[in-house]
């Protein structure tokens, strides 16, 4: 089996529009959550979110591209450009033929849907732009990455709600690990911060109206974000042969299904995924120094996640650090695991553990070291990234320092 390493990373999210600035923001514990700016915002009960600000797509894409790229595709391409530039890879010949793109996404082109529903239902128009379908389909981003970078192997999109990116990256890992592809471009994106997207979430009554405070006793719900995270997963020998800079090793993963409830999380399902990822990565519990939590800031997730970590890690649960960076960049739904993997890479490479900001009050049901409010310096050699989705679909990735 091939060892798999990360040789490129890219992002755009509410904190910043590239990786170095995002990591700096995480290290500073900056909050990207603010008042939402969108049409009809006054009709929303929830008016906060982690929106990408100061984003000027017309400076990055031409007119024809803009007519084909929904916001989630734009985010994906920006992140992919950064990741692939960092990797130094140029796809041609055999490398192009065998490499692929697997991205996580949940909602597809929600902005495109929203705008066009508005146009036909509210404005009564009987004609829509010819590219509505190719713009909104949730494989559009993966397809445009394959086209822009000439990547011609296995490419598709994975949808498992809030675990989409982790499932996608696990699948991409598997492709390289098993020798099917020398390089996979992977990660995920989401752009659900439009009127219809927020309105739908509002209905479930799990959104906070003021802040995202994971693990804090006074937490009162999740806050949505948007953006993308994209990585280059590469066969270690391939990367070494060309002298590529290696950011981290992807050591293993596990996926489980709760088979229980469509929205309530399960401790057993989460604990099985965590334990499975350790086994797959051949890690002892004591090896893990940091976990990037799913940590949504909902009452149910955070206590269930802490119980699952305690179950899977036993006594070591009290010695490791676990933080939720959603407190800063919001919950990117199908793209969230990808942006959160950046915090894992920062922990391994820079020895900086991103904090859980907005933490105000200890919760006995979340009695782990959640790195409250301030980043910490620590040497860690192995980390996990948790994602536990609606639908009871869990995916945990394990990364190692190389």
């Amino acid at each position, binding site marked *: 089996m091939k060892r798999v390493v990360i040789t490129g990373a890219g992002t755009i999210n509410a904190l910043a529009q590239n990786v170095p600035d995002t990591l700096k923001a995480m290290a500073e514990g900056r909050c990207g959550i603010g008042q939402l700016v969108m049409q009809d915002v006054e009709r929303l009960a929830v008016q906060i979110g982690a929106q990408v600000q100061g984003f000027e797509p017309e400076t990055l894409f031409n007119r024809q591209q803009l007519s084909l790229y929904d916001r989630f595709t734009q985010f994906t391409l920006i992140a992919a450009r950064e990741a692939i530039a960092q990797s130094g890879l140029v796809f041609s010949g055999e490398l192009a033929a065998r490499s692929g793109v697997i991205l996580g996404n949940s909602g597809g082109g929600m902005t495109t849907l929203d705008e066009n529903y508005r146009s036909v239902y509210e404005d009564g128009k009987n004609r829509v732009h010819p590219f509505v379908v190719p713009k909104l389909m949730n494989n559009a981003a993966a397809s445009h990455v394959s086209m822009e970078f000439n990547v011609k192997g296995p490419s598709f999109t994975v949808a498992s709600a809030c675990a989409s990116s982790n499932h996608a990256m696990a699948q991409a890992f598997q492709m390289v690990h098993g020798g099917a592809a020398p390089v996979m471009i992977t990660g995920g994106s989401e752009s659900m911060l439009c009127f219809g997207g927020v309105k739908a979430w509002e209905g479930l009554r799990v959104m906070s109206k003021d802040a995202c405070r994971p693990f804090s006793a006074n937490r*009162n719900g999740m806050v949505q974000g948007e953006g993308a995270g994209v990585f280059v997963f590469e066969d270690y020998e391939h990367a070494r042969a060309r002298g590529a800079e290696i950011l981290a090793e992807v050591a293993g993963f596990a996926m489980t299904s709760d088979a229980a409830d469509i929205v*309530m999380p399960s401790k057993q399902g989460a604990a099985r995924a965590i334990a499975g990822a350790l086994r797959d990565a051949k890690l002892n519990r004591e090896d893990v120094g940091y976990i990037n939590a799913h940590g949504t800031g909902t009452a149910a997730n955070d206590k269930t996640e802490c119980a699952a970590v305690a179950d899977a890690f036993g006594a070591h649960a009290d010695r490791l650090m676990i933080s939720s960076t959603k407190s800063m960049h919001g919950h990117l739904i199908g793209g969230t695991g990808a942006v959160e993997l950046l915090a894992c890479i920062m922990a391994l490479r820079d020895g900086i553990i991103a904090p859980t900001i907005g933490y105000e009050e200890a919760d006995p049901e979340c009695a782990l070291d959640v790195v409250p409010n301030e980043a910490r310096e620590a040497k860690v050699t192995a980390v996990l990234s948790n994602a536990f989705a609606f639908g009871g679909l869990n995916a945990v990735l394990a990364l190692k320092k190389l």
Partner: protein
Amino acid sequence: MSVQDKVIEIIAEQAVLEPSDVSMDSTLESLGIDSLGLVESIFAIEEAFDISIPFNANAPDASEFDISTVASITAGIEALIAAQKG
């Protein structure tokens, strides 16, 4: 139909029971209504009375809307109707 009868009708439907099986001191839990059923009941009540109920599933106790029994829910709705439509 009185507020009380309408609330009982909505909750009975959610619990798949006859309205006569729902009493004022019933709790949603005793009727077998789970967290999703609760959110759905609140939606149905908002629609039926054209009111907005301040309820966050993460902090049910923090809300002024007391969901502990059918009686407390009915009282809460009556107060909201008075406040929002009065």
